[in-house]
């Protein structure tokens, strides 16, 4: 069973994603901000992380950096989910090592398809 970690500070968004991925037989973990995400990632070694950028305390960029620096997480894929939709923002996210960058509001269906593609 693939492990997915959803990192977002919006409970309503998290709820939809959690329901969707549970149905797709993922083991779902939830974090409200970057520091919580890093803690869970360290313990669970998720296959994929869905990462919001604008979060309190440790933001998405910071979290991604930490994940990339962690050898245990070298196989973990990271997908940014962010309202920041300027070309420069997307560029920045990808250059930092994110595997995908989806802008909010996103289509759940498309997200699922992208993730399947990443994992195969």
């Amino acid at each position: 069973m693939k492990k997915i970690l959803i990192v977002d500070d919006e409970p309503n968004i998290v709820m939809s994603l959690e329901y969707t991925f549970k149905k797709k037989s993922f083991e779902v973990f939830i974090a409200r901000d970057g520091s919580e995400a890093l803690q869970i990632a360290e313990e669970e070694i998720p296959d994929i992380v869905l990462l919001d950028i604008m979060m309190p305390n440790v933001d998405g960029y910071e979290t991604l950096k930490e994940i990339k620096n962690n050898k245990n997480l070298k196989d973990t894929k990271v997908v940014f989910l962010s309202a920041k939709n300027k070309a420069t923002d997307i560029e920045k996210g990808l250059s930092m090592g994110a595997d995908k960058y989806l802008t909010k509001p996103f289509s759940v269906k498309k997200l699922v398809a992208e993730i399947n593609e990443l994992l195969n």
Partner: protein
Amino acid sequence: MNNYLLISIIIVYLTFLFLVAFWAEKNSKSKWVNNPYIYVLSLAVYCSAWTYYGSVGIASQSGISFLTIYLGPVISIPLWILVMRRVIRISKQHKVSSIADFISLRYGNNRFLGALVTIICVFAIVPYISLQLKAISETFEIITDETSYNSTLIVDDSTFYIAVLLAIFVAFFGTQAADASQHRKGIMTTVAVESIMKLVFFLVIGIYITFFMFDGTKDIYDQASALGSFEKITSFNGLESGFNWMFTIMLSFFAIFLLPRQFHVAVVENDRERYLKKAIWMFPLYLLLFNIFVIFIAWAGNLSISGEVNHDYYTLLLPLQNGNIILALLVFLGGFSAVISMVVVSTLALSTMVSNNLIIPYGFLDKFLKGDPEQNEKYIKNIRRISIFTLIIAAYFFYINFSYELSLYSIGLISFAVIAQLAPSFFMGLFWNRGSAKAVKIGMIVGVFIVIYTLILPLIVTVLAGNDLFVENGLFGIKLLKPYALFGLDFLGPEAHSFFWSMFFNTLSFLIISLLSKGNYRERNYAEMFVNSSNYANLQDGAFVWKGEAFISDIRNMLNRFLGEERTEKALNLFYLKYGISKDEEMADARLIKFSEKLLTGTIGSASARILIGSVAKEEPVSLLEVLKILEESKETIAVNKALQEKSEELTRLTEKLKTANEELLEQDRIKDEFLDTIAHELKTPVTSIKAASEVLTDDDDMPEDLKSKFLENIVTDSDRLTRLIHNILDLEKLSKGQEHLEMEPREIHKTIDKAIHGIEQIAKNKGVELIHNHGYQIQANYDEDRIIQVLTNLLSNALKFSDEKTGKIKVQVRQKRQTVEIIVEDNGKGIPKEEMNYIFDKFYQSKYQNIKKPVGSGLGLAISKKIVESHNGKIWVDKKYKEGARFLFTIPK
């Protein structure tokens, strides 16, 4: 006192002065050495032994006329700002290092004129220096009580050794740099120290005599008035005496500007023009202090000392008579200080003139053309050192041979009268551009000749012939040529008489010849540069007119010989940079010629500099008309330059304005971008949530009912959030633009608060938070009630948000101020972190420390509240000192 003891004391004192000079040279940048007080005190080199001893002698014999010597300088002082400042400016601009340089430069950089001025100065000052040596010798005798001291052997004469020591001192500290326009900090500092010494010791003896030997000034006056001669020495003898006074005052008036030592300390050693402002009141004060006790000492001497003594030395004789040898020694040291400061500065100034205006231009130029820079520097320094020794030795021999007969006062006045011959050329040259070199030379020679005839010759003839026939009958027995009563003018004293006639003929010759002959173009050029110095100040080298051909390489070689390659290179680079001239330029222009002359002037004098540069430059004669035209053009250039500069300054100002405006725009742009970004983000979040929930609901038919209704509920709350956000943004926008119309009405504030509280009562109750509102008496204010309720609601819901369940307490209070009503909303929550205090009123600022999972609210509440309060002309802020929770306050005008 023992001879050798006194010599030891003198040596100790001289060593001290050497050390002071040494220290000052070492610390030449220190503020102890560079300050207006040193400058003012060095001006007091004016007070020589003549002041220190001679004044008392004069006062004892002819009363208050000794004051004339100090009234001149004091009267001249207000003029300093006008005259001295201009002289200093010009001197700095042209690197002038002596009065001879100054005058010869003014009249077209005339070599002969420089030499003439130098000769006149030497002629006037050497006897003056010899007088100072005489004072040392005589006071030495008095202190050591060698009354019959009349040694014929130089080897036995302590004065000779003192003179040699002084020469060594000047030679050592005066020739540190070959450039004579450089400042001699060491010498100036010792002169300042000596000025303090002589004043303090003179005051000490004055107080001693007046208050200890006698019973104060009145006692001396009463006793002195009983003496027979009192009437004579305290009264003013009608018109004739008045003329004598006037001319002596004029003499000293000129002397303070023209004496080489005064020119040296006031102009050459001046660091900053603003020092003059201090000098204007401090120097007269110094002179005043020096003269306070003179008359009392003189009277006291007349009363207490009988017999044939030199009245000049009352200050020494009085304490000695009372057996106070220590005090006499102090007086001696004060007089000694006065002597050495005068001798040192005078020889320094004279030696510079002798070397730069006499010896070098008339004999050593060829030698310099062959020498390398180090050799040349050595030659120049040696010439100056030899000049110093020669001058002092000459003064010594003059003293040995001539000055036994003469008093300090008379030789001093003769010096002044000779030096005064420089006055017409000096003063008129500053303000009148017609004065020509020829006129100056003739005027000076005539003037000096008359001084010799009317003042010096009678003394010499009387001594040589042993009778007064020359004085009584005149030359060849012609009555009109009587030296003390020339052309029948018989009511003036010898000095005033001599001064009157010499100045009369000098000035007359100067004026007439100047008006008759035009002078050449070079004279006219310098005349313009001096007289209109303020016009050309910015132009500097550009005001110099020169036409001809010269290779820069030749000039460079010439400079190398005197300055060395390194300094030449540095100076030329500066020059190129200043005028924007390319380094590849081969031919020199007028500016470079002037600049190079100036570079050499300090070292070898202006005349030599011109001759040397002239030797490598083929100068073409320029007509007077051309000079005037070029100068006129330069003036115009200055005017145009000025206008251009003003324009450029204006443009710079405008550019600066545009730049700040642009920056402001950019900043506003950035703020707007940020604002839009934040709005987009805030709007996208609920939209994302709604979209995701809807997708999940559409795709999944077999979702359990309770989950389904949870998703639907989420959609509803997020839609509400969206609506609220849009509403707030529009509201804020309206308030920001000031478009919102306020329904201002007189209201009762407590009622309004009640309404606001009512809105959140239920939520507070659910959370278990206590709401406290103390109604006091009624308070009326003018405001838009709905808007103020909005502010209150915002503050209350914030307070509620951050209050703990069950224990939370929110309190609303109202305070009446003179012109406003102050409303306070405080809670007992965790308070606002310090680092957030400054941002909480910003748009979309949401605290990181909210105690619920996700902040509820748009992040606009406080921003909107602020706008509302401000549109009521009120203020809203956080009490930063409140520790028990958060405390918000806002005011609205009544």
